[in-house]
């Protein structure tokens, strides 16, 4: 459409670009994934007069080289998508460095509007920038904003609506390199006749040894190679003459030009003294106070999101139950013993989806808290404090947050943890972090811990919880190191060079938008998969069916129960109508509905109304005022007990006969060194889809026998597995601690690492590691005759020692290693075409 405009937002990190984006678009924005790379690109729309402006928020970059995905995405967009407008957001308080990027955009011929943002911060530092003077110098419009206070919104819109963009005649003076650039430019024009590219920019890029641009030239074939050779010869002669390589010369020229320009368009009202940021940092990254503050912040993050967020889920639970009941109402009613397949299947799916939705409040709070930390500017400080420790193990200072989210202490979630690895600038450390985040203790591992600790380590439960939460971190460091030394050896690693931006007060809108957006992203990515996986698990746990004899035996017992029930109610006036099996089933189902309504706390009048509407003929038997209803209720309770027992037995038989159950049995000889029985195997297998279900499956397997229906699962397990010792439990907990990630996490690993092989590795190594450790604990512990607590201590020591040794292995710094080689080979390569 002719009235529409496409605009790109470009700026350096921490320049307040996203606040400008929020100011312009309000809530009309969404995250778009850039194909092939894990760089978020946000899009939004807003209106300026008659025109609709579609704006793309490109990743923040200091420069436009081809060294990082962010820079490539930004550069390619500006160059290839040719937006009608590029809004270059600049941090006014750091104008000199911002101009460094502005110059490159101008060189690319981008239709620029320069947006001086955060002018209030600059003024606070005693720096006044004259926007008009800057506009005159650069030859492009300049607008001033304080986006986090919505100041300057109108000015930006006005600049956008004002007519055509002329290309600027501004040029950075590259001094003694200019004649060389001209030569290269001429050759380029000759190589691509009739094309209109920003030739000067390409020429500069060639002298900067930009790999991506070089490749484009190589693609032009023989003449391209010849041109590169010419440029290399020119670069060598320049280096000979100047005593500096052309790349540093270009950087310095831009810097000098920016310094001079800043001086011309700005003035200092007073010398820059100590800023608030300096004062805060004196504490926040102080040698002693810094780590303490960090611990405090991590603790607050936990308390807020996991503990308080968990309380919020209590408000959500009734709603999810209502949803489930509403869906149940539309399904074919349940039979006495067996549920119709459609009903069982659908309810399984609903349970799976609900078990994920339950985390939404936690995520909302967690993501909001993280957004606050990000916007305040604390993240780089966190990386600064911990980098040394993590680097020893192949991780990065920026790995801190993902690990915390994954659950360094007990109770995190690997999905946001893996998502948060995006900020890690170093590709190798990022992959290592992605792969070890799932080792952390996610919320779903907790139920099994609590179950086992309650039974076997009741006296030392607190200490054992510390044991569990720290072995995972220790193991994660060790694993990260091993991965870095092996499979990740050849992954690119990048420098740490990190800005410590000034602290900012976050805006409420920015926080809310980000929190909602990330939660939504999580739900969208995971929801569909959860359904598919739940369907798969349903099949694996239901087929093949138990033998007909087993089913028949259960059916006979069901009939006996019905006979007993009918005998008990023979004297009531309802006996005749309940003689029919169909009516009996409907009566039973209506009783279940009544229970559910009561659980939800529905008012009696409403219940009566609903039940009467549901089954007018049977309703009087459930809610009627006839004294015989009491007799009926009593008989019903006995029947219900028997029915539940039979149903439990049926599901247990189902599981035993199913593919998963058979696998668990077949694996028993293999898992014996770890002390796992086949029931444990089945529980562990069924948790592959979602670890929460481990306890539920155990509940089905250790079903109440005879009169112990009222006993807890813990008591039943203890009785039915008399051979089980604390050592068994410890091995099981160790395995659970290293349990492979859930499907949602594996999928997220695939998304973030872009390769299925990493996702498969993330799935595979924890099984081996977990099993090896469990076997070590159980077999080793048994051989040495250690008690559960002793074995835990010994295992802890061994793991700590191994990780400590791994930490001593020197890591490779690829850049610095390759550096010397590269310098040597550059001269060689100058002579020969690449």
């Amino acid at each position: 459409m002719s009235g529409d405009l496409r605009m790109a937002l470009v700026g350096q990190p921490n320049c307040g670009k996203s606040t400008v984006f929020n100011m312009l678009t309000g809530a009309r924005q969404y995250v778009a994934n850039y194909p092939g790379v894990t760089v978020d690109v946000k899009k939004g729309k807003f209106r300026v007069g008659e025109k609709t402006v579609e704006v793309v928020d490109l990743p923040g970059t200091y420069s436009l080289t081809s060294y990082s995905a962010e820079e490539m995405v930004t550069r390619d967009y500006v160059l290839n998508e040719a937006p009608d407008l590029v809004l270059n957001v600049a941090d006014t308080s750091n104008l000199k460095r911002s101009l460094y990027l502005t110059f490159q955009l101008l060189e690319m011929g981008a239709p620029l509007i320069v947006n001086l943002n955060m002018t209030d911060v600059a003024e606070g530092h005693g720096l006044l920038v004259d926007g008009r003077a800057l506009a005159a110098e650069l030859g492009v419009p300049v607008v001033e904003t304080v986006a986090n206070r919505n100041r300057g919104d109108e000015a930006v819109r006005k600049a956008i609506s004002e007519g055509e963009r002329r290309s600027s005649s501004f040029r950075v003076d590259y001094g003694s390199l200019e004649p060389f650039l001209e030569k290269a430019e001429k050759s380029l024009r000759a190589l691509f006749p009739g094309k209109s590219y920003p030739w000067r920019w390409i020429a500069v890029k060639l002298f900067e040894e930009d790999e991506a641009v070089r490749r484009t030239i190589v693609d032009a074939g023989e003449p391209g190679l010849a041109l590169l050779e010419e440029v290399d010869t020119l670069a060598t002669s320049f280096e000979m003459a100047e005593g500096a390589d052309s790349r540093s010369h270009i950087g310095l020229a831009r810097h000098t030009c920016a310094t001079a320009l800043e001086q011309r368009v700005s003035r200092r009202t007073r010398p820059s003294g100590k800023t608030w940021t300096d004062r805060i940092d004196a504490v926040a990254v102080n040698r002693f106070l810094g780590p303490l503050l960090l611990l405090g912040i991590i603790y607050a993050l936990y308390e807020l999101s996991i503990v308080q967020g968990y309380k919020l889920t209590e408000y959500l639970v009734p709603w999810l139950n209502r949803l489930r009941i509403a869906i149940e109402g539309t399904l074919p009613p349940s039979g006495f013993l067996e549920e119709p397949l459609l009903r069982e299947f659908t309810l399984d799916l609903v349970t799976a989806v609900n078990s994920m939705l339950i985390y939404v409040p936690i995520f909302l709070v967690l993501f909001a808290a993280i957004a606050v930390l990000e916007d305040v500017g604390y993240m780089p400080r966190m990386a600064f404090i911990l980098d040394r420790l993590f680097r020893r193990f192949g991780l990065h200072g920026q790995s801190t947050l993902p690990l915390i989210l994954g659950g360094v202490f007990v109770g995190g979630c690997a999905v946001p943890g893996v998502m948060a690895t995006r900020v890690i600038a170093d590709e190798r450390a990022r992959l290592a972090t992605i792969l070890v985040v799932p080792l952390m203790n996610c919320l779903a591992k907790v139920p099994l811990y609590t179950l086992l600790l309650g039974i076997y380590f009741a006296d030392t439960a607190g200490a054992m919880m510390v044991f569990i939460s720290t072995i995972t971190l220790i193991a994660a460091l060790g694993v990260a190191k091993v991965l870095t030394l092996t499979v990740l050896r050849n992954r690119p690693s990048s420098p740490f060079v990190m800005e410590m931006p000034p602290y900012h007060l976050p805006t409420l809108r920015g926080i809310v938008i980000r929190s909602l957006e990330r939660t939504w992203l999580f739900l969208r990515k995971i929801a569909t998969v959860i359904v598919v996986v739940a369907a798969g698990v349903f099949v694996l746990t239901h087929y093949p069916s138990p033998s007909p004899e087993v089913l028949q035996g259960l059916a006979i017992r069901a009939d006996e129960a019905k006979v007993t029930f009918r005998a008990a109610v023979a004297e009531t006036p309802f006996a005749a109508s309940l003689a029919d099996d169909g009516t009996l089933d409907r009566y039973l189902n209506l009783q279940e509905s009544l229970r559910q309504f009561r659980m939800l706390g529905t008012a009696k009048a409403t219940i009566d109304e609903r039940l009467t509407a549901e089954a007018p003929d049977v309703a009087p038997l459930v809610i009627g005022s006839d004294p015989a209803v009491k007799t009926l209720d009593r008989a019903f309770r006995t029947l219900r007990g028997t029915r539940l027992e039979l149903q439990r037995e049926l599901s247990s038989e189902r599981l035993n006969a199913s593919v998963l159950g058979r696998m668990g049995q077949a694996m028993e000889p293999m898992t014996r060194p770890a002390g796992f029985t086949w029931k444990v195997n089945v529980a562990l297998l069924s948790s592959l889809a979602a670890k929460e279900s481990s306890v539920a499956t155990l509940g089905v397997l250790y079903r109440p026998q005879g009169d112990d229906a009222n006993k807890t699962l813990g008591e039943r397990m203890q009785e039915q597995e008399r051979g089980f010792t604390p050592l068994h439990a410890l091995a099981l907990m160790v395995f659970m601690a290293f349990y492979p990630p859930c499907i949602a996490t594996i999928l997220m690993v695939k998304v973030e690492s872009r390769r299925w092989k990493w996702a498969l590795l993330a799935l595979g190594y924890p099984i081996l590691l977990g099993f090896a450790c469990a076997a070590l604990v159980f077999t080793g512990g048994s051989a040495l005759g250690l008690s559960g607590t002793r074995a835990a201590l010994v295992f802890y020591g061994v793991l700590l020692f191994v990780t400590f040794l791994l930490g001593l292995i020197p890591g490779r710094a690829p850049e610095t290693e390759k550096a010397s080689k590269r310098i040597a080979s550059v001269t060689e390569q100058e002579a020969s075409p690449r």
Partner: protein
Amino acid sequence: MTLDEVRPGGRVRIRRNGAPGSVGQRLMDMGFHRGVELQVVRNAPLVDPVEFLMDGQHVSLRHEEARFVEVEAL
């Protein structure tokens, strides 16, 4: 002298940014050029990385990266 040898509190001027590849580019983009003056603010609690103040902005580097930057004391 190289930048990694400068103690916290020390003020220096850059003589040459000799870092190759992406380290060099990144340092340049952050403003590590010949003639620029900077101050070593502090080491991290575990000594590495180290924080610098230059042109009013704070930048942190690891010592192994700072090693590439040749400086002279002011």
